[in-house]
């Protein structure tokens, strides 16, 4: 070992080692180049995408929902500007810290925020966390913006119902599309935070009214500050709806029900236009269209009065004596009776070992069909019902649209029950008992109907047997073309009942008001025809009405049309637990009819002008 090598040999050795340095250098640089080639060429497109995602943020531009007007152009639903809070997840460094900040700043519910942020969806789309921020909240957020990366405030249009609870069940309400809804194909073009109709016309016509969301791509810097807008795809506002409802009549109908539970449906029998559809108790769609806390929601759902239930199309009640209108037509048409054939009523009808009472102790004596309707003689209808049998009754009932959907443009319409032997076998797995036909003949027992079905039924009688599908939307204003598209009235069915039979029934129904059970519906303004009904809710009843707890009292029915000669309006009134139809329901129907008559007389001069003037709706944001 040369421990003391000379400088020369040391230098030589060192310079030989330089060769290794050269080789090493080339090797390392080659590897660096290889790595860079891998990053830039092989994975280049991937990183290019990542860098694009880095710099662009998509912002959803929510469309303004179409406006909703009544038949005269009175605004029922519009949009008002409101602040919404969005969070862009990509820009959020620490979710929990952000949730804490928002909780402290504007008192958001941390659990709710976490839930919203957890909803699956396109990663680069910001999540809507809260809408209807107050101006103060929005200002607070904006002033802390630098501390809240990823938080955005957007001005959006918010659904507003200017007349509060009016026509709440018809209009419905809107809400954020739920996670379950998003899974369905009809909501495919939506995203978390989209507003959709959740009830009423808002839901049924959601696709018309909804509009199409736009999108804005903005370039942001690393702190999430917007630098410039890259692309804007403007949102398309939804189309406007013109309802068949007359807001003035609607208000009157609702006020007539007042604090009581019940429903009033008024329609034009010649077109099926629903002029008013009131259901009480009601809800405020403005409240329901807001983000409700779980507690608020439970309160509404568990409310004894079931305000979310549209009693007009979803409430199912025994029709009581109003059923006799259909029974009369069935008996005549099936030749069970002639107009002149009579039945003797002594106050009861013996069948087997059971005596079926007439509502009038002592009976009506000898009555023909007309008298039986006017005085609502139960024994007469027991008798003819028994003669016809349940299946004949059912087949006529079906012609009148009972037991099936009227086809009104509302979600979740109920159909009631039109019993038959087949129905009982299917539903109860028991044979039909002959005694049950007797109860059914006066609209008790298994029979249930909705007020809307009854309005349609009486309208059919009024309109010479032609049923128009009840409808709520008259025309649609197309946003793109500004064309008002009138929807045609749809004839749904024609009764196979001779016109003279229907005429006889109409005359009898006029008699009900002039001399029968509904004299309280007699109007000085217009001739009204109608039929009372009292639907029993409890089988066993003792003592006078006022001693019975309200919950168990009878429902009062009245179905009517006017004017008798050329009917323009058909009305069904159902007042829950209000007792007799003649006293509780008939006066309400009369009020509705009189109001309508006054309005239409007036409308022929001024109404249309008002409608024309109010249509543009400049005050609303689109």
């Amino acid at each position, binding site marked *: 070992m040369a421990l003391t090598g000379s400088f020369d040999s040391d230098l030589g050795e060192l310079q030989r*080692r330089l060769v290794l340095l050269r080789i090493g250098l080339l090797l390392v640089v080659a590897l660096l180049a290889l790595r860079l080639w891998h990053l*830039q060429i092989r994975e280049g497109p991937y990183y290019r995408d990542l860098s694009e995602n880095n710099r662009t943020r998509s912002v959803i531009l929510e469309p303004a929902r179409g406006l909703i007007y009544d038949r005269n152009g009175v605004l029922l639903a519009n949009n008002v500007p409101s602040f919404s809070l969005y969070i862009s997840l990509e820009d959020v460094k620490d979710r929990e810290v952000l949730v804490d900040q928002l909780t402290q700043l504007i008192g958001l519910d941390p659990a709710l925020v976490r839930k919203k942020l957890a909803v699956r969806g396109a990663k680069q789309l910001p999540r809507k966390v809260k809408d209807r921020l107050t101006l103060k909240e929005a200002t607070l957020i904006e002033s802390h913006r630098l501390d809240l990366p990823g938080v955005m405030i957007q001005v959006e249009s918010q659904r507003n119902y200017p007349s509060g609870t009016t026509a709440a069940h018809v209009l419905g309400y809107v809400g954020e599309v739920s996670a379950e809804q998003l899974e369905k194909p009809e909501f495919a073009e939506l995203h978390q935070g989209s507003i959709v109709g959740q009830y009423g016309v808002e839901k049924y016509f959601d696709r018309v009214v909804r509009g199409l969301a736009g999108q804005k791509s903005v370039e942001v810097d690393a702190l999430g500050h917007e630098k410039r807008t890259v692309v804007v795809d403007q949102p398309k506002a939804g189309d406007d709806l013109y309802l068949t409802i007359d807001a003035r009549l609607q208000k009157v109908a609702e006020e007539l029900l007042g604090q009581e539970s019940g429903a009033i449906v008024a329609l034009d029998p010649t077109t099926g236009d629903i002029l008013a559809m009131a259901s009480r108790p009601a809800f405020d769609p403005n409240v329901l269209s807001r983000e409700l806390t779980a507690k608020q929601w439970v309160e509404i759902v568990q409310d004894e009065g079931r305000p979310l239930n549209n009693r007009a199309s979803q409430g199912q009640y025994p029709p009581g004596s109003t059923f006799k209108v259909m029974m009369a037509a069935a008996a005549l048409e099936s030749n069970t009776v002639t107009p002149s054939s009579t039945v003797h009523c002594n106050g009861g009808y013996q069948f087997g070992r059971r005596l079926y009472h007439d509502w009038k102790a002592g009976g009506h004596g000898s009555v023909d069909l007309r008298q039986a309707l006017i005085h609502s003689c139960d024994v007469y209808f027991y008798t003819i019902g028994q003669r016809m049998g349940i299946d004949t009754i059912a087949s006529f009932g079906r012609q009148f649209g009972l037991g099936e959907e009227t086809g009104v443009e509302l979600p979740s319409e109920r159909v009631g029950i039109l019993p038959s032997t087949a129905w009982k076998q299917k539903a109860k797995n028991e044979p039909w008992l002959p005694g049950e036909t007797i109860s059914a003949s006066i609209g008790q027992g298994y029979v249930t109907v909705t007020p809307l079905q009854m309005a349609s039924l009486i309208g059919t009688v009024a309109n010479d047997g032609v049923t128009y599908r009840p409808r709520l939307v008259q025309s649609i204003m197309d946003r793109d073309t500004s064309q008002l598209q009138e929807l045609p009235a749809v004839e749904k069915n024609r009764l196979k009942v001779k016109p003279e039979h229907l005429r006889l029934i109409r005359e009898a129904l006029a008699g009900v008001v002039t001399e029968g059970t509904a004299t309280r519906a007699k109007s000085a303004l217009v001739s009204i025809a109608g039929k009372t009904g009292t639907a029993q809710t409890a089988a066993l009843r003792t003592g006078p009405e006022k001693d019975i707890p309200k919950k168990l009292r009878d429902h009062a029915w009245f179905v009517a049309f006017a004017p008798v000669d050329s009917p323009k309006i058909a009305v069904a009134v159902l007042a829950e637990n209000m007792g007799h139809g003649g006293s509780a329901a008939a006066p309400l129907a009369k009020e509705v009819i009189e109001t309508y008559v006054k309005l239409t007389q007036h409308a022929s001069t001024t109404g249309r002008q008002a409608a024309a003037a109010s249509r543009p709706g400049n005050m609303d944001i689109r």
Partner: protein
Amino acid sequence: MIDRVMDSREFDNFDVRFLGLVFLILGVGVLSIYSVTHDQGGSGLPFFAKQLVWIFLGTIAFFIMLMWDYHRIARLAYPAYAVILLLLAFVLFEGKTSRGAQRWIPIGPFAFQPSEFAKLVLILVLAHYYSKAPRVGWLQRVVIPGLLMLPGLLLILKQPDLGSGLSFLAVYAAMLLMVGMRSQAMGVILLFSLMLFPFAWEMMWGSLHDYQRQRIMAFVDPDYDPGGKGYHALQSRIAIGAGELTGKGLYGGTQSQLKFLPEGHTDFVFSVFAEEWGFLGVLAVLILFVALIWLSLEIAARAKDELGALLAVGVICMLCFCVVVNIGMTAGMFPIVGIPLPLMSYGGSATIMTMASLGLLLNVKRRRLSLFY
């Protein structure tokens, strides 16, 4: 052609090529710095202008290091080292704190970073030591130089400045391998393992989970990437990769322009360049660096004495180490340590020091044929 050259004040062909490469790389650096920072407001001179000032000062340093014979400069090694150690100690007590580390001594509007200059001084110290001391046994070859290096290293790590500390160690290791190790075989093995270390490291590092890496990094260098969870590394990889073949063009690098990639003008200037100029640009820069180092190796190979060769080797190794580690870390091959890219990253101390080192290199070449005195 080099043989022909005598010691003279005139620039020869070699010098022109050498300086040409240096200024080309400097130019690329200034361009990238300008691209990242051109629309940043703020008071005072823009970064690229300041960098031009540093380059000017660096050029002066370059010629100062060229002015005297390197033997005379090497004789100042120990006093210079003493001054640097004092400055490093001073930094710990009085230095300017930035990013949690105390590295700078403010001089007027500028901040002076002694740890950068410490590297150059260490090269002088070790070259001087090895060329003078009798190298008998481990003590004199390895231990004494190690003890010489140690106070500087400790003071630098105390700041903490992991990047400079590693460069410091690299200079020592390179000197050791070139002259300290007597056994050629050992030298070869160690040299290779040093060359292969980055890749062995990557394999090992790559097999760790993210959180493990973070823990290691948090232990080694807690202040570099606070709360970022690998943010720098990812953004840098995205920037480089997004450049693809031809790049996004000048000012087109969204990663740095929109500040997703922090430190775009300093430690990550290479990523900025790679995003805007693509693989072709990157290859060009690599070739420039390789060419510069190749010329430097020529100088080392033809140095007339051991001191010259040692000085040249020290500078080359420092340069190589910084270039490889910086590019490696921006490309996600190494953990991120704060090592700037020589001649390209913005920074006064680093630019001046690198220029001075290159001046020393050229000094070795120019005195190659002069008399030993």
